[in-house]
């Protein structure tokens, strides 16, 4: 059991925002190779807007996360805007009321977030997208039992493995799919940023 409240959410989002900011050039470089060289700046723009939200102004964590999702939808654009936006909207919608929260409840919420991404983007594992990093993360979280801290750590490890596994893949979704065989040998930018998200969660939500 850990606590769920806007302050905790704020710590998580702020950590992710700073990770994205620090890694923006790297994410854009990954996107340069098999995309259009904007994933880092897109997400950075969005997370700076999220970071500017006032945690104290939200009634609860759900409202905060929904607003974060809407903010991403409204500021990011591209493929990652609706996907990341939907993710936070769904996580916010699936969380229990503020207070104590169990690992399984975090698991439910992240599963809902993942489902939102899949519903919007229709990608499957193996398509070389963020889904490749998020799906194993959620599964590992689920499989890790009741210790929230251990579950986040397992999720982060699984996410990183999923991200690394995108390297040899030929993309079937997103911009990288236009490259056909030439997309193989490059790490997916979205899978890379999702791993930053899970690692942030592991640092702040455990």
């Amino acid at each position, binding site marked *: 059991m850990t606590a769920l409240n806007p302050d905790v959410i704020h710590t998580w989002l702020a950590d992710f925002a700073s990770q994205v900011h620090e890694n923006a050039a790297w994410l854009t470089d990954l996107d340069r190779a098999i995309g259009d*060289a*904007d994933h880092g700046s897109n997400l950075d723009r969005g997370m700076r807007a999220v970071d500017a939200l006032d945690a104290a102004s939200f009634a609860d964590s759900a409202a905060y996360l929904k607003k974060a999702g809407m903010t991403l939808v409204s500021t990011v654009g*591209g493929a990652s805007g609706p996907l990341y936006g939907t993710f936070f909207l769904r996580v916010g919608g699936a969380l229990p009321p503020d207070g104590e929260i169990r690992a399984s409840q975090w698991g439910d919420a992240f599963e809902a977030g993942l489902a939102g991404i899949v519903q919007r983007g229709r990608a499957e594992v193996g398509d070389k997208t963020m889904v490749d990093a998020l799906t194993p993360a959620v599964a590992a979280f689920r499989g890790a039992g009741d210790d929230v801290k251990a579950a986040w750590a397992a999720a982060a490890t699984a996410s990183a493995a999923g991200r690394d596994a995108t390297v040899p893949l030929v993309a079937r979704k997103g911009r990288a*799919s236009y490259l056909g065989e030439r997309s193989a040998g490059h790490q997916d930018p979205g899978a890379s940023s999702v791993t930053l998200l899970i690692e942030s969660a592991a640092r702040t939500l455990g």
Partner: protein
Amino acid sequence: MKKLINDVENVVIDSLRGLELAHGDLVTVDYENRIVLRKGGPRAGKVGLLSGGGSGHEPMHGGFVGLGMLDAACPGEVFTSPVPDQMMAATKAIDGGAGVLHIVKNYTGDVMNFEMAAEMAAAESGVQVESVVVDDDVAVQDSLYTAGRRGVGLTVLIEKIVGAAAEEGRDLDTLVALAKRVNGQGRSMGMALTSCTVPAAGKPTFDLADDEMEVGIGIHGEPGRERRKVAPAKEVAEMLVEPILNDFDFGGGPVIAMVNGMGGTPLLELFIMYAEVHKILDKHGITIARNLVGNYITSLEMAGSSVTLLRADDDLLKLWDAPVLTPGLRWGA
């Protein structure tokens, strides 16, 4: 990176300001919602036409707002699709009671953002919204399991033709059917001699040796399907036209042909390309009824060219010839 800009953050807004100052007789810019609107507000009873996409493709789309073409355009950041808020605001602003048609290029980001906007607009405002997705790029293998073909040059032709039909007063369903028909019988393919530099990225999206080109590129500075040795215009024209002809049966023409520049290729070369495209089509017994040669859908300062062919008929040619009065395309008015 060398560009005539003030700072990378404000490239899009600064450019919109110039567009409005230069063409204030045709368009107004709503800076808060970041949309380019046809001067004079919505036309009662006319279907509103909206398109949008990442910036960096100028004159598309903002340059195609005006009589006989778009009612509004939503410019995103450079090479980044706009956000649903822009599209929703634009949709509401241009509804004249006859509904609004979204013309969407087939990119995951564009499609998802437009989808969200349509859902929100329907829920919030009751405006009737339909969408048509343009996917004309034969460089990309189409398949149920992929993101599908990109929307590229044909978008310009669809905006012109459907814009003329909307101006005539055709209704939303008719326009949807028309847009789909045009999308079904047009194809494009492009190539690049150089990459381009996204301002926020600060360096070229890809590196090409002095004797290399990318064939099968899109319009976002993405690398193409294949890297090849540079070749004479004649051969480049073949690399672009033959895949188009292999993909769709133009059955002897007539066609509307566009030889488009990617932004950094001068007209001198585009006319050379056009002559070669003309020669190839001639050999195939296909007549070019109308043409566009110039920079219409670009990738920043990329050097290169794309070819778009659309099978035409009398209705399409009549719509093509109808007056158009926009910053980027103008005739008969």
